[in-house]
């Protein structure tokens, strides 16, 4: 099978999921890695060392900034002449969009966010979650190329083989007339570790605003006092996250109440995550939250309500006051991890 893998990167830095997709592709056939950008030669070596047999490199000023229109048009044009059987991308914001548009150009379909893949003859059978993981579906595409995006952390990252090389083919990007979308700039976030890539997530829910021991400053109305309390609570969540090198998550209740920005939400209308360790603090476990984190390897729940549904998902639970347990846990991990 002729497999193409699109390497998603931001300013020359590959997203880890890209290499996971190379690894998954190698199990199906020979892999050509597609690298689009400007001054991205450094990624070529990485691609070979992570297992790519071939690299198709388009290194050009016209590709300096990511644009869905331009990148997908390049992919579609290359695929029309190169005829891969399968095109694979990581399920990142760029990967999903390039796949969507290239499928239209190539008159084929996209199977999004696969968590398992297998070949049946020359047909790819992709298992993917729907309803945020409340159900799984097996999906297949009757046209070629079969385009699939794979979820981050669902496939193992291949161990790089230092010094491994392969065939490098430089390709000329299509000269793409007038650009419809102009990139004006970036503001990178300070939200720390990304939820999707995180090995460890420490999350907070409504419960983090209920510390009875705190007295809010005078002059706040009821809502402001609640947010103030929640911010004190989330400080405890962030302190543990910082010690563990973890991302900070939140329940829908917590983001809807304005405790933390939406980008932290885990669940059906937030992000679907599957870290190795998920520590839920003051989260009762609404069904739409559980859908978003149920595939975490080890779940720890700290909640004062022994009947909270989160305990049914958890490997370890503490029924108690998170405002006492959480700081104690941070102190212990600081000691144990030598920080």
């Amino acid at each position, binding site marked *: 099978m002729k497999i193409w893998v699109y390497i998603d990167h931001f300013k020359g830095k590959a997203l880890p999921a890209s290499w996971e997709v190379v690894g998954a592709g190698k199990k199906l056939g020979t892999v050509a890695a597609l690298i689009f950008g400007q001054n991205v030669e450094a990624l070529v070596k990485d691609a070979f060392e992570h297992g790519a047999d071939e690299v198709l490199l388009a290194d050009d000023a016209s590709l300096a900034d990511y644009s869905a229109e331009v990148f997908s048009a390049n992919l579609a044009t290359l695929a029309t002449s190169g005829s891969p059987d399968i095109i694979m991308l990581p399920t990142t914001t760029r990967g999903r969009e390039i796949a969507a548009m290239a499928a239209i150009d190539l008159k084929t379909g996209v199977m999004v966010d696969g968590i398992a893949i297998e070949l049946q003859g020359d047909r790819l059978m992709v298992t993917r979650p*729907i309803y945020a993981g409340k159900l799984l579906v097996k999906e297949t595409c009757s046209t070629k190329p079969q385009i699939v995006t794979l979820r981050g952390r669902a496939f193992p990252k291949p161990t790089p083989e230092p010094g491994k090389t392969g065939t490098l083919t430089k390709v000329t990007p299509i000269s793409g007339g007038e650009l419809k*979308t102009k990139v*004006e700039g970036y503001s*990178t976030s300070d939200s720390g570790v990304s939820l999707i890539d995180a090995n460890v997530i420490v999350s907070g829910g409504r419960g983090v605003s209920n510390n009875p021991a705190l007295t809010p400053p005078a002059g706040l109305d009821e809502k402001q006092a609640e947010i103030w309390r929640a911010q004190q609570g989330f400080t405890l969540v962030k302190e543990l996250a910082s010690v*563990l090198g973890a991302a900070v998550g939140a329940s829908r209740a917590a983001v809807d109440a304005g405790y933390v920005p939406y980008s932290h939400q885990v669940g059906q209308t937030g992000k679907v995550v599957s870290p190795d360790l998920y520590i839920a603090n003051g989260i009762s476990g609404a069904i*739409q939250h559980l859908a978003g984190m149920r595939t975490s390897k080890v779940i720890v729940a700290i909640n004062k309500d022994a009947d909270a549904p989160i305990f049914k998902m958890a*490997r370890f639970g503490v029924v108690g006051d998170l405002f006492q347990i959480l700081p*104690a846990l941070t102190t212990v991990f600081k000691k144990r991890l030598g920080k």
Partner: protein
Amino acid sequence: MKIVACIKQVPDSAAKVVVENGRISWGDAPLVINPWDEFSIEAALQLKEKHGGTVTVISVGGENDKEAIKYALAMGADDAILITDPTLAGADTQAIAQVLASAILKIGGVEAGFFGRQAIDNDSGLTPAQTARLLNWPALTLAAVITYDGSRIRVERSIEEGRQSVSANLPVVISLVKDYGEPRYPSFMGIRKAARAEIPTWSLTTLGITAPAPVISWPEIMNPPSREVVCEIISGGTPDEIAETLADKILAEKVL
């Protein structure tokens, strides 16, 4: 600005969704407007309020999908069209994008197509970009902030690394993320107006197309494997004791 907002009706996010005899069932959970689409309606209404124009809602589905449409009308959308056709059973995202693009062209003079980032049932998140591609319009997806200066539309996109600012001339497709800000609740007057609204129904014949053949199929739908865990409750005399024991247990799992 003439705006079209494409919406979908889905089971409520609190629904317990299971497969029974190969069919997806959400019990007696209510069907609601896709939660992401509420942000798209909100953004469309704010643009209209600032710059004038109309917001037309379109949805592909069955007669039952009128509930979601009525919700969008109650929020303040001006009118709506339901696209329904028996030949669309089994349509994939590529097919739906073709239907939406045809409808947008048939309405005519549309300057912006608004979408939620994805629907919470299929979770594919492909339709906005695919509809834009078919229309040959720029796709400003995952918008958290939208500004329009009368000629060019600027969007701050929410991406893995933070925000990317992009701009384009009209017509455009825009998809919305939650960071945009709370969608409004329908007003009492809005609900009354929506209840009385006539919602025209278009078939594929109205659009002058035949159902695009789906290329994606679902040979099997499954309930996820149940999570076989027994929760071990950690207890102790003091918070410090509990924390020590819990840390031991977590470290023994070798996940750090």
